[in-house]
């Protein structure tokens, strides 16, 4: 029982990170119909901002992390307004290519001050490397990751159900034309969605960096896993992103242990291909219906 327990604990912690990445992808996709291929780099930028505020400005850990999340939220808002709004109604391939460009641009920007070095991101609890409960071994970092992902999920649920902004976002996602007609400022919703997605990306970044190490290319692996999570959960489903992320983390660990560790290198690709063939709308996605 010990091995499955350890694989589950670690898989859930990794999966929580993938879920956060998937969440950012899904939010932007639902609103603007575009896969944000630069989302891995948003995660990286968030982590670098947190690192800089912590190490160079000497801010306390929680303040530095919150400031990084806020900064990325603002970055998302501005990015949408200046880079995507003018082409918001172009073909989705055009939008996707712009996000690929954004990915390269963000990596390039990070390399200017930081080069290609690998940095060590401080841990929140550096003096407590592990916590042992019977057979279960976890790190405080993993507990924080799972806790923050859970809190964010609940927070988003409340936000979308109970706040005006959240309801307007859902309305815009469901019917853009209808939302415009009833007076919703859809431009603001677009920017707000990007701000929210980038802020969640930054949360994933500052949570991932102590384990993943910090370097300009750190986002690629998370984007791949997050993308697989979004495909698995259903690209238009927020709960699907969460469940998909957790499943990807668990599949990685269990398949790595019980099948072959080499499988972990291709697991994300296998899941994407399998889901697209067998269940193209994902676990929580719905086949689109058209009124005739």
């Amino acid at each position, binding site marked *: 029982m010990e*091995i499955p327990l*350890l*694989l589950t604990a*670690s*898989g859930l912690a*990794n999966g929580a990170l993938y879920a956060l990445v998937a969440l950012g992808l899904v939010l932007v996709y639902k609103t603007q119909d575009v896969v944000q291929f630069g989302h891995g780099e948003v995660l990286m930028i968030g982590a670098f901002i947190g690192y800089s505020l912590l190490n160079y400005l000497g801010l306390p850990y929680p303040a530095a992390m919150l400031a990084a999340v806020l900064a990325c939220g603002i970055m998302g808002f501005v990015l949408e307004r200046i880079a995507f709004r003018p082409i918001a109604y172009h073909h989705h391939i055009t939008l996707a290519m712009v996000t690929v460009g954004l990915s390269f641009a963000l990596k390039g920007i990070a*390399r200017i001050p930081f*080069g*290609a*070095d*690998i940095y*060590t991101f*401080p*841990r929140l609890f*550096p003096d407590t*490397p*592990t916590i042992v409960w019977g057979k279960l*071994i976890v*790190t405080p970092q993993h507990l924080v990751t799972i806790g923050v992902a859970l809190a964010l999920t609940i927070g988003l649920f409340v936000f979308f159900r109970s706040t005006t902004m959240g309801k307007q976002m859902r309305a815009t996602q469901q019917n853009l034309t209808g939302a415009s007609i009833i007076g919703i400022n859809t431009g603001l919703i677009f920017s707000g969605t990007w701000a929210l997605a980038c802020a969640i990306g930054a949360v994933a970044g500052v949570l*991932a960096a*102590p*384990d*993943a*190490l910090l*370097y*300009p*290319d*750190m986002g*690629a*692996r998370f984007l791949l896993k997050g993308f697989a999570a979004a495909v698995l959960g259903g690209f238009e489903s927020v709960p699907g992103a969460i469940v998909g992320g957790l499943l990807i983390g668990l599949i*990685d*660990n*269990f398949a*790595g*242990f019980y099948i*072959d*560790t*080499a499988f*972990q*290198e291709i697991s994300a690709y296998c899941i994407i291909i399998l889901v697209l063939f067998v269940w193209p709308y994902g676990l929580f996605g719905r086949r689109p219906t058209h009124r005739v």
Partner: protein
Amino acid sequence: MTAKRSMKLAGLAVAAGLAWAGAAGAADPGITDTTIKLGMFGPLTGAVSIYGYPINNGAIAIYNETNAAGGINGRKIEIVHEDDGCDPAKTRAAVKKLIEQDKVFAIHGGSCSGGVNAAKDEFISGKVPFMVMAATLDAISDPPNRYIFTTTLPGSGDGGIMLNFAKTVPNAKKIAIVRHQDDWANAKMKNISAGYAAAGLQIVADETLARNATDATAQVLKVKAGNPDVVLFLLYPGESAVFLRDAEKYGVKGPFVGSNSVMDLLDLRERTGSKTSVNNAYASAFLQGYVGDPALEKWTAIYRKHFPNDKVQSLSFYGMSGALTMVDAMKRAGKDLTREKLVDALEATKDGEAGPGYCKVTFGKDVRQGCLGGTIWGVKGDQIVNIGPSWPKTN
């Protein structure tokens, strides 16, 4: 001036011009009376650029130092840089450009095995002398080719050093291996696969860890299940840190023996975020000493002199032995330097200065891997120490 005299002078000028052109045509590309143009390439951008500037800059520091001391038989070295991004297609293009467009005399470069191997034919067909910068794939220099030389310890040699150390661990019978699945790790596996059984060892786990992996739980638990006496890890520094961090988390005690990619064990320790993660970790090394070691003082000073803003790290020394060997051979090749004379001089190198490298450089008629020696480093307190090629008797 009469028309006849003008014609004579013009004729002389044309003749002189033709003679000069003929002489210039006879010389190899990249050579003038005052300069030698060397090509250099490496991953200056992209995910692996961590292996670009520090390594190339070590070689550049040696070439700059040579220029400052008067150059090579009156000629100054000029370096033309190309970025290959560690991408085999780009490496091939970079090498083609250096040879055909920049018309360099010789090339010293390449930190990525896949790229250098892909560009190998360009050196051979162009008959351009090539010194490997830091790529370790055996196939680059074995079987030997007239134009390709390396002073970097090849991957198989690295694996051999690791295995030789592992088999001297007291009562070692079972080994576990954690590695990447690429040419780099496969080269290191060559001597391990060939020699473990003869050394009386049994492999109880042979696990793969993906590049850029952030978690090694499955690998560590499989290693733990095998209950090995020694664990070999053939991983890049970032992934090594992930593996050792998780090994400590799940109580795998080692000893761990890493490749020379992690010879800077203190850097590795910092990356794991744990003060105790490398207490029982060792690494193969092809340098005389670690960063800060008095044995490297001279080479550290040279690096700092030419790159005062760079952080001196183990990588800073990787390219120096090749540069020193090139400088020595170009000097010995004489004033009438040609590519063929340089190759002959390189081939004649015997016990050459390897600078910070662990051994002396020796090539021969069919010997293109000039340095096959290495040692094992460990950590005592906050200091890297040279353990030697086998397990210390006092441990």
